[in-house]
């Protein structure tokens, strides 16, 4: 049979070479690579810097406007995190709720899908009228935009529990809530964390969009006014700060994820 035919002599065990930890390095390398491509792309495409500034100019802008960028970033981070936290609680809650019963699932899911197909920016005016401009609409928009992925993944996690695992608890006379808490939630944790990665990015989008429409501070407001002044490098500086904040939040969550769902990440494949 095929592979045995090649009677190679017994190979010596491969020596471990001087090892570079590519896994740790790669985020840095990829980021540098991205900036290089961006710089080249912007130069070659010949787009005016009022449309697509080069990273060099963007960094200049960051340097030049550091104080407002910093203040507005903190504001945006604050509203985003707040909205995100509410989304986690609500997402988990609604996810469990939907997982609870087929009737609720059938009734609530379509409505939520419909609701989420609506651009949240359309709702900001209503929030502004109710809560005035500033922090509250931004937090609420961040929340409204980001809870759905959490709901979906928690609900999917609950719906795909193997009955064999459920039976372990059912045989003990466990209540549905017990099964949810002891099996449903832990089992969907890996996907819950996955959904958080999506949710946090959406939360940023939500608060920025809301700030663009109605706020005196925050990156959204800063970018909107920079845009109207043709200060496009500053707009991109704002976008870059958003990305950095998103990545920071991601790193935090990846850290929590690693501590909480190690059991699920035993796959040997991704090396």
């Amino acid at each position, binding site marked *: 049979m095929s592979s045995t035919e090649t009677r190679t002599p017994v190979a010596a065990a491969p020596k471990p070479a001087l090892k570079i930890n590519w896994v740790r390095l790669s985020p840095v390398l990829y980021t540098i690579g991205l900036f290089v491509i961006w710089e080249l792309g912007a130069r070659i495409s010949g787009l005016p810097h009022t*449309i697509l500034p080069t990273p060099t100019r963007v960094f200049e802008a960051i340097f030049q406007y550091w104080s407002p960028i910093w203040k507005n970033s903190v504001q945006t981070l604050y509203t985003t995190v707040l909205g995100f936290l509410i989304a986690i609680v609500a997402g988990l809650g609604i996810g469990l709720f939907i997982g609870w019963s087929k009737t609720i699932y059938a009734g609530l899911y379509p409505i939520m899908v419909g609701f989420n197909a609506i651009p949240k920016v359309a709702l*900001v*005016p209503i929030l502004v*009228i109710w809560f*005035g*401009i500033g922090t509250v609409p931004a937090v609420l928009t961040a929340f409204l935009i980001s809870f759905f992925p959490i709901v979906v993944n928690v609900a999917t996690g609950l719906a795909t529990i193997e009955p064999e695992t459920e039976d372990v608890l059912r045989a003990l006379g466990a209540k549905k809530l017990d099964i949810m808490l002891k099996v449903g939630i832990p089992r969907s944790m890996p996907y819950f964390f996955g959904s958080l990665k999506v949710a946090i990015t959406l939360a940023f989008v939500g608060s920025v969009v809301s700030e663009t429409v*109605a706020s005196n501070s925050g990156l959204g*407001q800063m970018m909107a006014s920079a*845009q*109207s002044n043709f200060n496009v490098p500053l707009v991109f500086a704002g976008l870059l700060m958003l990305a950095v904040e998103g990545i920071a939040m991601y790193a935090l969550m990846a850290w929590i994820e690693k501590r909480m769902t190690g059991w699920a990440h035993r796959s040997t494949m991704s090396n």
Partner: protein
Amino acid sequence: AQTDIKLTLDWRFEGPAAGFLLAQDNGYFADEGLNVTIDVGNGSVEAIPRVATGAYQLGFGDINSLIKFLDEDPSQPVKAVMMVYDKPVFSVVGRRSLGITEDPKSLEGKKLGAPPPDGAFAQWPAFKEVAGIDDSAITLESIGFPVREPMLASGDVDGVFGFAFSVILNLKANGVPEDDIVPLLFADHGLNLYGNAIMVNEAFAEENPEAVKGFLRALAKGFADAVADPGAGAAAVLARNEILDINTETERLEMANEMNIKTPYVVENGFGGIDEARLAASIETLKISMGLQGNVTAADIFDAQFLPPAEERMLP
């Protein structure tokens, strides 16, 4: 062979766009051998880079923003070739019941709603200087377009920045009585700027000077038609945007004609041209309001060579 031209408007298909649409519907473009596509825009600022990059050959946008744009990077191949809004409708619109009168001084101590991308708001630094307003007690609230008029209607702010005719009509739609609305036009209080103009991509203009000329000729006819028969203009708009209300758009078009287009200067000198001195003066004004570095002169901004003779540009 027809020359293909892509034109970007400053905004959506609404009353003031009637001149463009009539030029097309009445076949003026076709007569000049042009195949024109008219696309909607997203504000009179965004049209500029669209033209500068050559994505659009021609565009309709704010000349003040164009000055700022070219001041930032004078190498950009874009120029204004025809003035449309001889007088801009940059304004603060307030409500009499909230204490705002025709006197700019009445703005002092008030709370004003300002959408950051708004063209009127951009001129605020210059306006407050020429009008001698002390802004130390004025609160500026950064609000977006969707909430601008509702917030004024509900009294959350005392006045808002904006284009007079839009704001007035929108306030009426929000249930504010007409006599409570006070538009403070910057132009009436010493701010002598130009408004929206036709811009061209210079590379295109160099290669197709005849096409540009023909376009402007056709456009002048279109705008003349829109002034002559606003009802027909509004109908042309509605053919492209069914959701509008014919009366509102007629009103909007009439207001634009009256306030922006058919100014005394235009009646005298014809539609589309400029007064070099006035443009130069407005560049000086913009140094205050937009922080120009002084990289451009009036000649860098406006190129009159494609305009048809003045007698072809007279409005009815």
